[in-house]
């Protein structure tokens, strides 16, 4: 039986990071994954990640996946694909692995479980019809395989998965009809909602899906408003003309393997193994990292994987105690940064009234997905002045600061606490480089010249759609809610490689629209 110092189960962000950390300390590592390709869900994450530089912020998820894979390979991690781990056995420290034809056993001094999570389903009339799918399934089809999941789509769930996949559907050329959520407020980041809303997609909060229509596949959806007990209110039903219904109502840890070892488990959005600060379960040598130990996101999963492997390396004497303590404290502080802010665990289910800065939180953003024009002036990134300057529509305390590093001219400050709202420094001169516009993972930064003569203004915005507008082309300026509010002329289109596929579009709009126009739509050709 082949023996490894460390066996890692699951080659997603947590597992790959654990494998890299262990191998970097000279341990032999076997990494097992049931899929044909490694990376877990990373390769379908085509958006720029949040966080700060140490968390690989502003890098797109699939590129992080490529980096991790290359590193694992370089360090000699043995990757076993199409290999389903069917059992873990303690105290023998053994796993059995099936490749579909035969079963092989491996043993490991340490076993790190990083099996991830699966999507929750919700039952409603017609939920089994072809055309009702998990939002992650749609993401797999479009971002990995280049196939549209449908033409006209309803998204159920407004957490970050619903918002991010919703945006990606539009990028894939699908028509997103609406995002609904039974909760009275949007669950995910406001900036993710805002970039969807400005394309004209409505958010319907306190709404649920009543049924999927169709006999052979989805031909429509019926939604209804819900009362405070989440029950549909009779008479509020309405039909939506869609062929696809995507479900983004949370994830459940895939903790079956942990359960079969007999380690202590607890309830946390599904059963999860009880782990200590290093990710070790109640069984010595068995660790859990990433979503399997509690749903978070990829950035914290990567750090969790590293901590578990680091602890295993220290336990078995591959690193000195002082080296362990230093690395652990670095990882831990990095993790704590990600776990702060409005969306932190301790704030779940709460409705916060003010930001850390004491500013009122936009209720319009929470209810409709976009900032109200009345609200925008109260935030430190949204200043008004002469000449071109950044307007940062970032109004919630989320762990993210690439804007600060992107501007080489000191126009944007977040500070050491990465959940603070970015401040637009009125004294620094904006050079119109566009780096902040492209760097912002929330696509919330605009460069605005409020008066460029002739009663006109220029608005520079991030644009991640195809086809790209052409310089000189005439179309419409869209408001934050996606309504055509004025004529617009495309002044400039920049697609610098350093922007990593985020085009920087400058449009000319009437002067009074400088603080209102936030998106561009070409004149319809049909």
């Amino acid at each position, binding site marked *: 039986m082949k023996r490894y110092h460390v066996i890692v189960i699951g080659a997603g962000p947590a597992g790959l990071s654990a494998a890299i950390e262990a191998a970097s300390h000279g341990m032999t590592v076997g990494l097992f994954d049931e899929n044909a390709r490694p990376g877990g869900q990373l390769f379908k994450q*085509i958006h720029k990640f949040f966080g700060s530089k140490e968390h690989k912020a502003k890098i797109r998820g699939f590129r992080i996946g490529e980096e991790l894979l290359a590193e694992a390979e370089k360090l000699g991690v043995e990757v076993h694909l199409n290999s389903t781990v069917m059992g873990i056995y303690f105290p023998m420290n053994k796993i059995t692995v099936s490749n579909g034809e035969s079963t092989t056993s491996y043993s490991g001094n340490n076993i790190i479980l990083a099996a991830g999570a699966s999507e929750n389903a919700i039952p409603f009339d017609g939920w089994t019809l072809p*055309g009702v*799918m998990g939002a*992650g399934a749609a993401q797999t*089809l479009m971002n990995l395989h280049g*196939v549209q999941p449908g033409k006209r789509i309803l998204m159920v769930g407004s957490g970050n998965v619903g918002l991010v996949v919703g945006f990606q559907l539009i990028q894939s050329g699908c028509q997103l009809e609406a995002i609904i959520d039974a909760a009275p407020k949007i669950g995910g980041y406001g900036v993710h909602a805002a970039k969807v809303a400005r394309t004209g997609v409505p958010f319907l909060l306190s709404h649920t899906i009543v049924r999927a229509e169709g006999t052979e596949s989805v031909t429509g959806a019926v939604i209804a408003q819900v009362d405070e007990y989440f029950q549909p209110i009779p008479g509020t039903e309405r039909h939506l003309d869609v062929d696809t219904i995507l479900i983004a109502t949370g994830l459940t840890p895939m903790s079956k393997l942990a359960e079969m070892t007999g380690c202590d488990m607890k309830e946390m959005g599904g059963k999860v193994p009880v782990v200590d600060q290093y990710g070790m379960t109640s069984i010595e040598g068995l660790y859990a990292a990433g979503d399997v130990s509690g749903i978070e996101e990829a950035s914290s999963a990567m750090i969790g994987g590293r901590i578990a492997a680091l602890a295993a390396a220290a336990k078995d004497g591959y690193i000195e105690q002082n080296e362990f303590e230093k690395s652990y404290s670095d990882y831990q502080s990095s993790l704590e940064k990600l776990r702060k802010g409005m969306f932190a665990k301790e704030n779940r289910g709460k409705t916060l009234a003010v930001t850390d800065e004491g500013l009122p939180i936009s209720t319009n953003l929470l209810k409709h997905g976009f900032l109200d024009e009345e609200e925008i002036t109260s935030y430190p990134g949204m200043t008004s002045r002469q000449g071109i300057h950044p307007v940062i529509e970032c109004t919630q305390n989320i762990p993210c600061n690439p804007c600060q590093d992107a501007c080489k001219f000191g126009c944007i400050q977040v500070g050491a606490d990465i959940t603070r709202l970015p401040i637009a420094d009125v004294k620094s001169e904006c050079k119109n480089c566009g780096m902040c516009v492209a760097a912002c993972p929330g696509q919330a930064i605009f460069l605005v010249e409020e008066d460029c003569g002739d009663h006109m203004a220029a608005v520079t915005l991030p644009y991640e759609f195809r086809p790209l507008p052409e310089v000189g082309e005439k179309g419409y300026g869209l408001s934050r809610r996606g309504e055509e509010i004025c004529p617009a002329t495309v002044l400039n289109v920049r697609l610098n490689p350093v922007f990593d596929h985020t085009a920087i579009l400058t449009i000319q709009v009437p002067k009074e629209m400088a603080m209102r126009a936030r998106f561009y739509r070409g004149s319809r050709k049909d």
Partner: protein
Amino acid sequence: MRIESHPIIDDFKKGKKVAFTYNGKELEGYEDEPIAATLKAAGIEIHRYTRKNHEPRGIYCAIGRCTDCVMVVDGVPNIRTCMTPLKGGMVIETQYGLGAKGAES
């Protein structure tokens, strides 16, 4: 429908075009993409009908968990089409209950 141009992904890195049959009809797809993706691109939604109630089922999770997308592939039933790569010459059939049409059980 296949995505023609994408703002972020320059190349979906497809294998070569291959022919296969779906319920006897000759169709084309790309080698090694999941069968489910090929069928979705061809506008085919129904993968199987359930045994008791003869209800249609299609792709649900696309990561091999739910088994809703199983079909009869090269005569073998219960093949998860979201996890199984397409090969040239494959014979893919709608699954009825536990087998192909006529083999209902």
